[in-house]
C-alpha cells in the first residue's frame, strides 16, 4: 500500500476546488430550499465532498457516471455545469432536462453524467451496460456507479457486481458509506463491511477513508487504471459521514449527536484546505480567490435559473417517445 499513487500539487488543488464547489453549492442549496425560493426534495451531500472529487480527477469527460438522488457532489465533480443544474432544479425550461427531470434525475451526457436515479440500487445495472458498451467498442472509457451503504443490501447490487465481475467490465462500484440509509444505521442492516462483499464476486475491493483525499485518490486511481487496462471492476467502499438528515427537512433526531459533532468537526473540506496551505501547495489568498469565484458562479447560475421560464404543458407530450404524442 506504500507505493500508492499520490496526487501532484496541481491535482491536489483541483481536488480541493471540486470539494469547495460542492460544499458551497450545498450550502447555497440548503439556503435556497430553506427560504422557500425553490421547492424540491434536496438530499445534501455535505460531508461527502472528498469521494467524487478525488475520484473524478482520475476520470475524463467522456468517462461515464451513474449517480443517485444524493448526487450533486458526484455531478459537480464530474463537471456538470452549474447553470444547467440550477435551472433544472428550479424546474425551468433552460434546465439540463428542461425541468422535467428535477434534482433526482439530473443528466448531462456531455460530461458523462448519464443517469441519476431515485431508485436505490439502480445506478449499478445501468452502469454495467455503459461499461459493456465501452468494452465492445474498446474505447477505454470507464464507468463509475455511485451508491450508498444502504444500497448494498438490495438485489440490484448483487446482480450487477456479479455480472460485472464475470464479464470483466470496466466499471467501478463506488459505495459512499455515510453510515446512514435514511433513518437506519448501516450496522443494523448488514453484518459485514460493504467492501467485504467484493470477494463474493471475485472482484477487487477495498474499504478506504473516503474523507481522506490522498487515500481516496489512490484507491480511485488504481480502480480506474484496472478498468482501463481490462482488469475488470472494483468495489470501493469509501467511508464518510452524512452531515445532515436524509432529505432536507429531516430533523435527524435519530443521529447520535456526539458522533455527528465529531464528524462535522473533522469537516474534510476545511481539513484539506488547511493541509494545502500547511503543505505549501496553495495559499490562503489563492484558495479564497478560488472560493470567491465559485460563489460568483453559483450566484450567476441561480440568477440565470430564476430568470428562465417554466416549460409549457406541451412538454407533457414530448420526450415520452422520439415522436411527440398527438
Amino acid at each position, binding site marked *: 500500500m506504500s507505493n500508492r499513487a499520490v496526487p501532484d500539487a496541481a491535482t491536489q488543488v483541483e481536488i480541493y476546488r471540486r470539494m469547495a464547489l460542492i460544499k458551497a453549492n450545498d450550502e447555497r442549496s440548503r439556503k435556497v430550499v430553506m427560504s422557500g425560493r425553490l*421547492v*424540491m*426534495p434536496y438530499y445534501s451531500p455535505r460531508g461527502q465532498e472528498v469521494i467524487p472529487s478525488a475520484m473524478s480527477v482520475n476520470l475524463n469527460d467522456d468517462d461515464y457516471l451513474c449517480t443517485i438522488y444524493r448526487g450533486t457532489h458526484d455531478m459537480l465533480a464530474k463537471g456538470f455545469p452549474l447553470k444547467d443544474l440550477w435551472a433544472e432544479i428550479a*424546474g*425551468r425550461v433552460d*434546465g439540463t*432536462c*428542461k*425541468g*422535467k*427531470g*428535477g*434534482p*433526482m*434525475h439530473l443528466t448531462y451526457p456531455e460530461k458523462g453524467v448519464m443517469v441519476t*436515479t*431515485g*431508485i*436505490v*440500487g439502480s445506478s449499478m445495472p445501468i452502469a454495467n451496460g455503459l461499461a459493456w458498451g465501452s468494452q465492445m467498442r474498446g474505447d477505454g472509457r470507464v464507468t463509475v456507479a455511485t451508491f450508498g451503504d*444502504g*444500497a448494498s*443490501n*438490495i*438485489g*440490484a447490487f448483487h446482480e450487477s457486481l456479479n455480472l460485472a465481475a464475470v464479464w470483466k467490465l470496466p466499471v467501478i462500484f463506488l459505495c459512499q458509506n455515510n453510515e446512514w*440509509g*435514511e*433513518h*437506519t444505521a448501516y450496522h*443494523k*442492516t*448488514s453484518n459485514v463491511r460493504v467492501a467485504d462483499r467484493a470477494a463474493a464476486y471475485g472482484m477487487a475491493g477495498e474499504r478506504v477513508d473516503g474523507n481522506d483525499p490522498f487515500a481516496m485518490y489512490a484507491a480511485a486511481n488504481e480502480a480506474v487504471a484496472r478498468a482501463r487496462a481490462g482488469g475488470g471492476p472494483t468495489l470501493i467502499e469509501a467511508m464518510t459521514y452524512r452531515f445532515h438528515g*436524509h*432529505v432536507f427537512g*429531516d430533523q435527524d*433526531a*435519530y443521529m447520535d449527536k456526539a458522533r455527528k459533532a465529531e464528524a462535522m468537526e473533522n469537516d474534510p473540506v476545511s481539513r484539506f484546505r488547511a493541509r494545502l496551505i500547511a503543505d505549501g501547495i496553495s495559499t490562503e489568498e489563492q484558495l479564497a480567490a478560488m472560493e470567491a469565484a465559485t460563489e460568483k458562479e453559483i450566484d450567476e447560475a441561480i440568477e440565470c435559473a430564476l430568470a428562465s421560464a*417554466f*416549460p409549457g*404543458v406541451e*412538454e*407533457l*407530450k414530448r*420526450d*415520452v417517445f422520439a415522436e411527440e*404524442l398527438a
Partner: protein
Amino acid sequence: MSTETMTKPAKATTLQAINAAIADAMEEDENVVVLGEDVADPEEGGVCGVTKGLSSRFGDQRVRSTPISEQAIIGAAIGASMIGFKPVAEIMLMNFTTVAMDMIVNHAAKLRFMSGGQTHVPIVIRTMTGTGFSSGGQHSDYLEAWFAHTAGIKVLAPSSPQDAYGLMRSAIDDPDPVLFIENGPTYWTPAAAPEKGQRVPIGKANVLAEGTDLTIIAYSRMIHEATPAVAKLAEAGISAELIDLRTVAPWDREAVLASVAKTGRAMIVHEAVTPFGVGAEIAAVLNEELFGKLKAPVRRLGGAFCPVPFSKPLETAFAPQTAEIVEVAKGMVG
C-alpha cells in the same frame, strides 16, 4: 394521536388514522406484526412517522426495521403470514413495488390458488404515492391498475382518515393479500376522526354526494379535487353524485351501476395515467351493463400519458384538477 383521543369527535389526519388502526389491531391480535424500512422507533417510525410509537409499545420483534430489500420484506411478510401472522409490510413508495413485483404478484397473490387453498397469505402491503411533492418521475406513480389486473390481491385507496382507519382494520382482518395505497400529499390533512374499532368494508364504495345529473367516480386524492368540483357544479345548476370507490379491486359494481343508472352519465377520475387505467375497466363495464341507457359517453380523466414531471407547473398539469372536472362535467351535461 393516541387511540384514546380517537374516540372523541375530534379531527385526525390520515397519517394518524393509519397509525391508530395498526396500533389497535396490534393491541387486539398479537399476530399482527409490522416490517419495512425505518418503521421502528429508533428510526422514527418511518420517514413520515406513520408507524411511530409502535415498536416502543409492542416491542422490537413485532415491529422491525429492515434493510433496503423490498423482495426480502415482502417475502418475509408472506412466509410469516402463511403460519398465522398478520404482517403489515411497508413499501415506502409505490414505485418501489417494482422491485418486489415477483413476490407480490407471483407469490402473495397466487399461493392460495396454486396450493388449492392449503395456504393463504393474509398480508397488508402499505405503500404511499402521489404527485404534489415535486418528486418527479420515479416517486409519484399510481400503479393500482397493475394490481387490479392481478387475480388474488385486493387494492384499497382511501381518501379520508375514517376510511383509512376502517379500511386498514378490514385489510388486517382480511384472509388475503391487500395492497393499501396511501396518498402522501394528503397525509396531514385533518378531517373527522375515526372511531376506534370501526371497520370500512372492503369492496364497498361511499356516496359522498348525491346527485342526479352525472356520477363522478374517484378515489384517493382525486376525491379532494372532485369534492370542490361538485360544489362548483351545483353553483352552475348541475347536480353531481360523487362516489368514492375506496376499494379499487374488487370495486363496487353495484353501487356504481346503481348511481349511473340513475344519473345516466359517468366520469371516472384518477391520478394514474389514463390509458389502460382503472377508468377503462369501469367505463367498459358501465357501457356493457347500461348499454343504450347512458345519456353521454363515459368520460375518463387521468394523469397525462407521460412519466410524472418535476417542474411544478407540469406536475400540476399532469394530474386531473377541479377545474378540469368541472369543465368536462359541464360538457357532458350541457
